[in-house]
């Protein structure tokens, strides 16, 4: 697999859109159909974190880094990790200005509660791959923290999960290269989709226009 150039990077956060609905992802990331431009959101997100006094904090054997920009040329994705915990660990890697070796653990904060689909996990796994590529180390696990339920969910970063993310990233790039907004099976998830007023999911199952014209003109 050839590496992507930085100019081709897509937003890592798009993974959750993509897993929710490929069409939704395309509408947001290819067609930029978003009330609030995603890039602006990413920007303000970064800004908030930069203002955070605890941007780098050390407690005992753990170093907490917030708002860490990450990317992977192999995935062709770029994004920001909410928090990466660096745990002192003999299997880890040395860090600039720190003693000993550390193992990174990405922690992603989610406003809501755990979702039915895989998307949060995939996003975390993508972050883990980015960290692995950037630090040349293994990232065996990550954590999801759900604000609404105050629950921490530990996620083991398995080879299967990573392969799945690689496949997703590849598909995202294929669509992006063709600037293609896929048609998809519509369903219950459309009810909660914020883009349904421009997607018009009903339209994807409508009679053809050719038939419509024929029918109307015949009357």
């Amino acid at each position, binding site marked *: 697999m050839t590496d992507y150039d930085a100019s081709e990077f897509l937003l890592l956060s798009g993974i959750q859109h993509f897993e929710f609905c490929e069409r939704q992802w395309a509408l947001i990331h290819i067609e930029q159909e978003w009330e609030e431009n995603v890039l602006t959101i990413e920007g303000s997100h970064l800004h908030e974190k930069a203002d955070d006094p605890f941007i780098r904090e050390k407690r005992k054997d753990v170093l907490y880094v917030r708002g860490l920009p990450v990317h992977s040329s192999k995935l062709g994705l770029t994004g920001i990790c909410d928090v990466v915990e660096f745990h002192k660990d003999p299997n880890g890697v040395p860090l600039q200005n720190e003693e000993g070796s550390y193992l990174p653990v990405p922690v992603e904060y989610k406003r809501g509660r755990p979702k039915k689909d895989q998307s949060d996990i995939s996003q975390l796994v993508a972050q883990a791959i980015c960290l692995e590529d950037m630090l040349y180390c293994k990232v065996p696990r990550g954590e999801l923290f759900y604000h609404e339920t105050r629950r921490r969910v530990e996620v083991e970063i398995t080879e299967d999960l990573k392969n799945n993310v690689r496949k997703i990233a590849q598909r995202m790039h294929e669509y992006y290269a063709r600037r293609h907004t896929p048609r998809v099976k519509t369903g219950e998830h459309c009810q909660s989709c914020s883009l349904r007023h*421009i997607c018009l999911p009903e339209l994807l199952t*409508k009679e053809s226009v050719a038939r419509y014209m024929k029918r109307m003109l015949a009357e």
Partner: protein
Amino acid sequence: MRRLLNTIYVTTPDAYLALKGENVLIIKDDETIGRVPLHNLEAICTFGHQGASPALMAACVEQNIAIVFLTSNGRFRARVIGPSNGNVVLRKTQYRISDDEQKSAHIARHFLVGKLYNAKWTLERMTRDHALRIDVEKFKRVSAHLTESMKQLMTIDDLEVLRGVEGNAASAYFSLLDDMILQQKQDFFFKGRNRRPPLDNVNALLSFAYSLLSTEVGAALEGVGLDAYVGFLHRDRPGRMSLALDMMEELRSVYADRFVLSLINLKQVQASDFLKKESGAVLMTDDARKKILQLWKDKKEEKITHPFLKEKISWGLVPHAQALLLARFIRGDIDAYPPFLWK
């Protein structure tokens, strides 16, 4: 489908528009004569020679609210556009189609079929509702002509030929417009279309209604990310909203003509609403314009069932629905552009 948001029309000719917090202020002679929250606004249309503050323009651009400047006759002057206008992918595809005569013709003929279909059913409605007042046979004849022309249109791939067929059919339809005026005949008559300036009351009304409609269609197209200036049937011409004109074709009779006819036939306008200038130009009084805008607004609230979407929407959303459908076609989600076919 999106909700129908509000459009405010500022008809006071020398008012100035400004921003205060989240409100538009309408200021005249240093006094605030109106205040409208931006929230839930879709567009601000101002008639006459007023201005608007840059702060208001910026706020509107950010919140996707169109500011449209019109002359006091309702002719389009300018619209404020922000720094980025959305969907580049969609626009590039639109331009590519526009550069391709044959692809353009395929869309254009659907606009025109829509136009003739709606004209036909405007005539058919008259024969049904007012059979005793009109020459039914004459109406049926033109109606049949329109049906024939539609069939013909569907087989044509050439823009010039399309225009020819449409031109004939349209003049046949217009030949009956005067017959559809059933009240106040001494003050309202139609001998043919004239504009810039309109020379009689009916033409003044038609011009006004068309410009309201084109403004709304233009805004709807831009709202879904299309370029209202790049058309398929109407070719590019500087400053002309060609695509808005294209899409307007199918709505003219059913939206604007019927509106004008009902103003006259229901005696919602009178001869005293018009002024004749020395030059022969006919102008509407300020009060008439206000009254008509209110009725236009009322019409926009009326509900219909969209023939293709089969969804109940208000008349005011029809331009938006058609713009969405066109964008959907250009994006490749549907096999063709479905015109709004009214009955």
